[in-house]
């Protein structure tokens, strides 16, 4: 393992805490936290259930600079209750998205790592996620791009999986997972025949970063390196900021919701269901995409993976 880490140039996104992801992504020392730990905005709903609280309630929010441009940023801490969303956690995120409408940053970066609703405060968490969705789409309607980053150990699931797909664009690493119902939830409810959550390879073929990239569910697949996430985010935002580009010349990933853009998405999703709806496994879908040796994709490093699929996406 130490050999591997020696090869890596930067810092693993997967292993980093929510706070160190922020400091690695933004220009150094530019982060200004909003409602930080000293404000002690903890969840009041955990103590009665004998659960320890956290001074950040599992999410760090604030402002900073990315390549000199002002951004707002939120980072979910997967280590605390799996990054699950409760009343305070959700309200911090909603507040940040609403602040963006007033402050007009170059972008909002959402570092998503969450199992979805926090069951200890389930009703408040579900409503909070719905509020996040509405706030996020209002932020986009105000012309501010929202970029989602996924790549932590807890993945991005439940209602936050829907939130992720409401962003303009997503960046994921190979280790990142994105879905709705976690494999363990499906196994517990529907049985191990439906989904064996201990089959790690199956889990990654179903909800992992490479598959999500091939499907078009995420737009950017990067190495597990905070620097790679940073470079990709900078590219996305620079493009938005560029005064030379007319709105129509911008990459299609950053556009307001319009009837045309949603009709196009509708067509894409309909085709996906039509083409791959019968498939039982990621490898079957990749095979339908005419990728050679689809069973080898999970083993490839990122450069080899891109080479193997470059003609198919």
């Amino acid at each position, binding site marked *: 393992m130490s050999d591997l880490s020696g090869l890596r140039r930067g810092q693993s996104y997967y292993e980093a805490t929510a706070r160190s992801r922020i400091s690695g992504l933004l220009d150094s020392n530019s982060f200004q936290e909003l409602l930080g730990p000293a404000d002690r905005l903890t969840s009041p709903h955990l103590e009665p259930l004998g*659960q320890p609280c956290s001074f950040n309630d599992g999410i760090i929010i604030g402002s900073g600079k990315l390549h000199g441009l002002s951004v707002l940023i939120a980072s979910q801490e997967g*280590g605390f209750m799996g990054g699950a969303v409760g009343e305070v956690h959700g309200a911090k995120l909603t507040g940040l998205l609403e602040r963006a409408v007033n402050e007009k940053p170059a972008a909002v970066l959402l570092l998503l790592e969450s199992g979805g609703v926090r069951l200890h405060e389930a009703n408040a968490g579900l409503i909070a996620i719905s509020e996040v969705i509405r706030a996020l789409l209002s932020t986009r309607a105000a012309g501010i791009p929202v970029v989602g980053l996924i790549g932590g150990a807890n993945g991005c699931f439940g209602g936050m999986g829907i939130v992720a797909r409401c962003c303009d664009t997503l960046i994921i690493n190979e280790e990142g997972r994105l879905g709705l119902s976690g494999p363990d939830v499906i196994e517990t409810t529907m049985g191990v025949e439906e989904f064996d959550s201990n089959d790690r390879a199956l889990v990654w073929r179903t909800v992992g970063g490479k598959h999500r990239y091939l499907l078009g569910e995420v737009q950017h697949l990067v190495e597990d390196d905070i620097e790679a996430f940073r470079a990709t985010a900078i590219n996305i935002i620079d493009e938005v900021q560029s005064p030379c580009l007319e709105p129509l010349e911008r990459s299609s990933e950053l556009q307001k919701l319009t009837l045309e853009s949603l009709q196009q998405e509708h067509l894409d999703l309909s085709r996906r269901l039509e083409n791959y709806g019968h498939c039982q496994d990621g490898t079957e879908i990749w095979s339908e995409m005419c990728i050679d040796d689809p069973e080898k994709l999970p083993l490839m490093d990122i450069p080899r993976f891109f080479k193997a699929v470059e003609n198919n996406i």
Partner: protein
Amino acid sequence: MEHLEFEFKGSGNRQVDRQATLVGVVSSGNLEVMLENVDLHGLCRINVSTSAQGFTEIWQAVLNDFAARYDLADLQISINDGGATPAVVCLRLDQAMEEYLEALT
């Protein structure tokens, strides 16, 4: 949940002008430690919220050792603990101090 409070008299005068310092994550077997400058008339106060009940004496021993090592005054230390072992608690406290004192050097 159990809430414990400890106070130590310190002579230390190593006040660092900075915002709250926070290290660690609250999870099973882990904890977060926050340090804040507060005028406590020369005391260092440590508040612990822990999900593991009945370990007051162990906390006392670990924190005695910590306080003796650093000799702190006018410092509020707040801990949210998910049942960490004494070794992990020591490690996080040291990390917190390292980060806190970074601004001094």
